[in-house]
């Protein structure tokens, strides 16, 4: 067992659950329903995201292409964020979720620094409905829904049925069949995180493109506005 985790990696361990998501990129149409559903589900404030769909255009007219890459916490089987947390506020659940105990979090942001996926954020104090703020938050794989036998909200609303969720250890589950039967990739698996969000199947070059900094003015000016807005706020790391 990797040290510092509260639960052992459960992928492939018989008798244990291992929730996982498969994202079929052929089916993602960039409709952003998942983003809106997630924001509504958790009253996620503006400026932070539990899930998002990255968009990138490549090629030259008329051979232009557009690519989507939905992103969320990978609920790693070997999560680097968990080991580093000084208060065990973030922990690994038996069934594979990586979760956050808000009542313990001190928002030191070590977990954010540890996460190679930018899957974590500090919740602002100004929120609409839910009175949790000033702590680190992240995607929970909709633990409260999944434990009630529902799929996560983003999966529920996914128009293209691009997001598929289930127990990877159950040989009859759709995710198990897809991971076993389709060419899939995980993001930054070379970091040793054992991510549990599987993608069918982007070309490596597309993945790289999507990670690149914004190039268009439209995106860059948004980035500038974002960092301008955050400047001088607590937790702002001083970029731009």
């Amino acid at each position, binding site marked *: 067992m990797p040290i510092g985790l509260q639960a052992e990696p459960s992928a492939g361990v018989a008798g244990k659950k291992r929730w996982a998501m498969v994202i079929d990129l052929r089916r993602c149409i960039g409709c952003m329903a998942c983003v809106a559903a997630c924001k509504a589900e958790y009253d996620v404030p503006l400026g932070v995201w539990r899930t998002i769909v990255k968009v990138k255009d490549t090629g030259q007219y008329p051979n232009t292409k557009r690519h989507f890459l939905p992103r969320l916490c990978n609920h790693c089987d070997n999560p*680097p964020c968990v080991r*580093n947390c*000084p208060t065990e506020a973030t922990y690994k659940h038996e069934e594979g979720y990586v979760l956050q105990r808000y009542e313990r979090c001190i928002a030191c*942001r*070590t977990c954010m620094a*540890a996460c190679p996926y930018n899957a974590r954020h500090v919740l602002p104090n100004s929120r609409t409905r839910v009175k949790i703020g000033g702590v680190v938050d992240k995607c929970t794989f909709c633990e409260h829904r999944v434990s009630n036998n529902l799929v996560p909200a983003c999966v529920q609303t996914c128009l293209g049925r691009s997001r598929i969720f289930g127990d990877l250890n159950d040989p009859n589950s759709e995710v198990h069949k897809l991971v076993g039967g389709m060419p899939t990739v995980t993001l930054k698996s070379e*970091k040793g995180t054992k991510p549990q969000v599987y993608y069918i199947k982007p070309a490596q070059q597309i993945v790289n493109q999507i990670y690149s900094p914004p190039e268009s003015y439209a995106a860059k000016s948004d980035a500038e506005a974002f960092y301008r807005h955050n400047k001088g706020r607590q937790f702002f*790391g001083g970029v731009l």
Partner: protein
Amino acid sequence: MFEYMNFHIAPWGWELSVYFFLIGTAGMAYALATAPVMFGGRFEALRPLQLPGLVLAFVIVLICGPLLIHDLGQPMRFLYPILYFHWTSPLSWGSLFLLMFAACVVLFWWFDRAGNTAPLKPLAIIGSLLGLSMPLYTGNDLMVQTTREVWATPWIPVLFVVLSVTSGAAALAVIGMIRKTDDADASKILHAVMLSGVATTLFLFLGLLLSFLYGSEEMQLGWHILNDQFAMQVWLLTLVVGILAPLALLVRPDIGRRPQILAVAGIASLIGAYAFREVILVAGQLPQLYY
């Protein structure tokens, strides 16, 4: 739809680089200040710097505590890392060590004032070890982030320790000059420490440069970002001011041991030590900012 609709902040900002710098300085200042008690002999020359060293360490601890607490999103929970101690987190250890280090500083000063010399030596040893662990753990804080390649190298704690060694000596040198407690032997010690520290830093800088240039894509991107947005911090403040200038000043012992020169070199190396940490902190975070 445009290509980006979401953005991230870099989690750690100036508060952390200031803290890393200050606490490292404090740790080594303590070690040097208590060296006469610990080793005696020729370190006795540092005796006049004992009180200034302790005060410096104490002041820094007083600054760092609130700074760290302010940096938290939940400042009222600053004791949680100790209450909910997580042994694999350098931060938990760091919080514990920081508290113990602060205690050593206060106790040492207390017993020394009270004339009770018996506990001084153990306090000097423990406190110096804890002081040393300050830069070590701040370095570990970065090193254990295995997914950030710029940070995930054992060089980082070593570098931070070396930087602290220089900074501690430099700070004492500056104080010594201001308080005119200059003493040839003390200067000799400080000079030796600083010279070896800065020289090592140069090698570490070059090593880091190489690993940036020859490293993974992320390392190279980090280097690119540094040169793009932080060129002044890298080349001017870290290399020229922080390393080359003190090296030039210190390289000839006869000149380098002059208190003024020592102090100027000290100030320069302090600037460098801060800039170097900031550079590392930034370079480690930004390559993945748009990931």
